[in-house]
């Protein structure tokens, strides 16, 4: 079990460029999430998905888009990158079987926009 994998690990973008952050999980989890973490801050939810074909906005969705065509994959698209999107991005997944249904996180993608 690889768990949650993210690519790339690092990326530098110029202002106005676009890119897709990839996220894949092999745990057959139905819920998936994208967070960003800015220095000294907690994780902020960008988008989440409760299953293939279903996505919804989190706390900070502006400037991002997502899609969920399969259970395993949940890519995050940045259009027209801005310096404010410099952050570390984490993908997570969970299985809604009741209880705390803890989320499992990937290793993160460190993105710099200059």
């Amino acid at each position, binding site marked *: 079990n690889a768990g*949650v994998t993210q690519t790339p690990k690092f990326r530098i973008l110029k202002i106005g460029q676009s890119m897709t952050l990839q996220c894949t999980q092999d745990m057959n989890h139905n*819920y998936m999430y994208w967070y960003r973490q800015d220095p*000294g*801050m*907690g*994780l*902020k*939810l960008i988008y*989440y998905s*409760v299953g293939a074909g279903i996505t*919804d906005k*989190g706390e900070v969705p502006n400037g991002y888009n997502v899609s969920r065509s399969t259970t395993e994959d949940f890519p995050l698209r940045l259009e027209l990158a801005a310096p404010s999107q410099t952050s570390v991005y*984490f993908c*997570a997944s*969970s299985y*809604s079987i009741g*209880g*705390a*249904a*803890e*989320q*499992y*996180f*990937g*290793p*993160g993608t460190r993105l710099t926009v200059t």
Partner: protein
Amino acid sequence: DQQVKQNSPSLSVQEGRISILNCDYTNSMFDYFLWYKKYPAEGPTFLISISSIKDKNEDGRFTVFLNKSAKHLSLHIVPSQPGDSAVYFCAARNKDFGNEKLTFGTGTRLTIIP
């Protein structure tokens, strides 16, 4: 409006002693509280959780205490070990949203001094 607060950005504890990390919250709709541990350049990993109907949950060296009347929870690590040096995030789940939304605190950096 920060609904989950970790007021201590850092904490240093001697190896073998008890580490106590604190977390305060404001939203009465939170039904589960979770602690995550994060090493540099890695994603957060789930440590322990507690339901809002309980006041204590224990897992090995880790115990979480919940005081609902004070809207306060704490994570106790005893005895503390060098490998416990990491950033610890408190997170809370809103029962109105189920698994979709965790609200994270800003984290406390724990350093265990050998």
